[in-house]
């Protein structure tokens, strides 16, 4: 059941008992205001329990729109039959400022900002200190991945979106290497997006754009990109399916969705194999506790198949000490060691013994990298599928 005009839509989803607001709610006439209010009242009177008002996709509202919402909350207060939950987004600045006022109309209104703490490791991943780790990873990954991207259908002239693009280095490298007509990078981290914009100036690239956004609720039109990437990110979200749904939505019919995830089961090393194995198994368990699935590479094919994508194609990107620069590889492992032992270790309050066990495998791997006869890997699964035409 929808209430639609040229600029906004109010869409009731009975499964979640949620009204989704989309577009620009800037009513001007009394008729418009009455139409909104009547629709909200009509839904209210059909629902029992909790009614959610979700504003994650409402780009703008005006005072008349707020008035309609306030009058609705006042209506609900007088009826006192339901609980109302209001869901805002930190990506939409007005919503954080204006919506809390609805609680003043009725103190039983519950207000939440969806994307504050929406994944457990958010504070760490979105910190500017995480950026050097991302840069180091790209340094060794890109030489192999650019061929994989070609193999998965990325071509010159395409409209490309990189969702969860981090510090933006990969979209800019794609821009240089593949010459897309346009490339959009989206990330939730303010620090990463600011870094990406600075790097874009340094690279002097004009057909790229970066924006801050929530990957589960992208402010991007349906069917608007030929090639949609999401790299090394699905594994950090507890509900990767929500992101995949958005990737599929923004890809045009026939367009391709490309995802890569690491898989700690694919990391091996020699000598000191047992220590390296133990560390990554433990790191994966600690990752679980932080809401990350660091063994998710093997699950990608199933995820894309369940999303009903066609012509699914998979590749391994197997970095090792023979195809990556050893010193750059060592820098990546140094970053992981620091991130895992210090950042995650502190966050999970690991005791000294556990920290030492974790540390010993990373140090064993570093010795393998820095020894001329040592060998180790970083295994990633790349998977892409085509969005059906109809």
């Amino acid at each position, binding site marked *: 059941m929808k209430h639609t005009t040229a600029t906004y839509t109010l869409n009731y989803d009975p499964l979640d008992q949620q009204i989704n607001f989309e577009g620009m709610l*800037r009513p*001007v006439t009394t008729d418009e205001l009455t139409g909104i209010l009547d629709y909200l009242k009509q839904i209210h009177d059909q629902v029992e329990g909790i009614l959610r008002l979700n504003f994650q996709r409402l780009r*703008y509202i005006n005072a*008349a729109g707020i008035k309609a919402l306030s009058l609705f909350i006042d209506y609900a207060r007088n009826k006192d039959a339901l609980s109302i939950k209001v869901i805002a987004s930190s990506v939409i600045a*007005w919503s954080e400022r*204006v919506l809390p006022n609805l609680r003043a*109309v009725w103190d039983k209104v519950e207000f939440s900002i969806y994307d504050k703490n929406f994944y457990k490791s958010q504070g760490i991943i979105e910190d500017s200190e995480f950026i050097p780790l991302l840069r180091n990873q790209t340094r060794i990954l890109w030489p192999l991945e650019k061929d994989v991207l070609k193999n998965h259908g990325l071509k010159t002239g395409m409209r490309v979106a990189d969702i969860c693009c981090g510090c933006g280095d990969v979209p800019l490298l794609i821009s240089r290497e593949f010459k897309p007509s346009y490339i959009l990078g989206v990330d939730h981290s303010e620090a990463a997006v600011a870094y990406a914009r600075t790097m874009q100036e340094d690279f002097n690239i004009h057909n790229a754009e970066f924006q801050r*956004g929530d990957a589960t609720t992208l402010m991007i039109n349906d069917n608007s990109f030929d090639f949609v990437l999401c790299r090394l990110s699905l594994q950090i979200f507890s509900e990767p399916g929500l992101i995949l749904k958005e990737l599929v939505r923004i890809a045009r019919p026939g367009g391709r969705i490309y995802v890569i995830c690491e898989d700690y089961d694919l990391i091996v090393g020699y000598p000191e194999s047992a220590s390296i194995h133990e560390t990554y198994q433990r790191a994966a368990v600690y990752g679980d506790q932080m809401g990350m699935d660091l063994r998710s590479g093997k699950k990608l094919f199933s995820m894309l198949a369940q999303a009903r994508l066609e012509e699914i194609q998979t590749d391994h990107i197997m970095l090792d000490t023979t195809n990556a620069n050893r010193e750059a590889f060592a820098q990546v492992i140094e970053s992981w060691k620091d991130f895992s032992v210090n950042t995650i270790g502190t966050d999970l309050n690991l005791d000294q013994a556990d920290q030492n066990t974790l540390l010993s495998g990373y140090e064993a791997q570093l010795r393998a990298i820095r020894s001329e006869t040592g060998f180790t890997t970083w295994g990633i699964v790349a998977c892409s599928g085509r969005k059906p035409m109809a």
Partner: protein
Amino acid sequence: MQRVLPPQSDSSTALFAIELTFPIDEFQQDWKQCSLLANYIAEYTAYQFDQQERAENIVSTITNELLEAIVYLAPTQSDLIIHLEQLEDGLQLKTSHLVRENLIAPYIKFLEELKLGVADEPYLNLLTSPEPSDHYFNQLGLMMISHDFGAQIVRLPTMQPDRFCTQLFIANEEFQA
């Protein structure tokens, strides 16, 4: 008509400035133009800010409310001049326009009250109560941007006695997350 002014042409502290002039009838005949213009100004201005999406959203929201108010206030066949400047300490939006005879006194009184700040109670009351029908000029919108976005709205003196210059200022801190 749009002019992008070179820095320091109008104010010695302006980092960026833009000026636009419109016949008010365009907005009165099609109210959606307020929203279109607010979005245009916001998109154009946001590139000056580190947190672009945030700035764009806030600039559009406050500009739209101010425009809606002025379009109610101004008589037909008058013009509206919008002058926007980014200053060291914030964003300043000046509008030069006429005010319909019957709204001059209520508008001046409203701006004088607004200068003192918007307390929670009258604002929250207005959210759920009928607005004045005789002297309506989007009072709620102006109160909202003052209450929720820290906008400072004042009337400036002008050389022409019949023209109003309504100035809106938002401090840089308001654009930070």
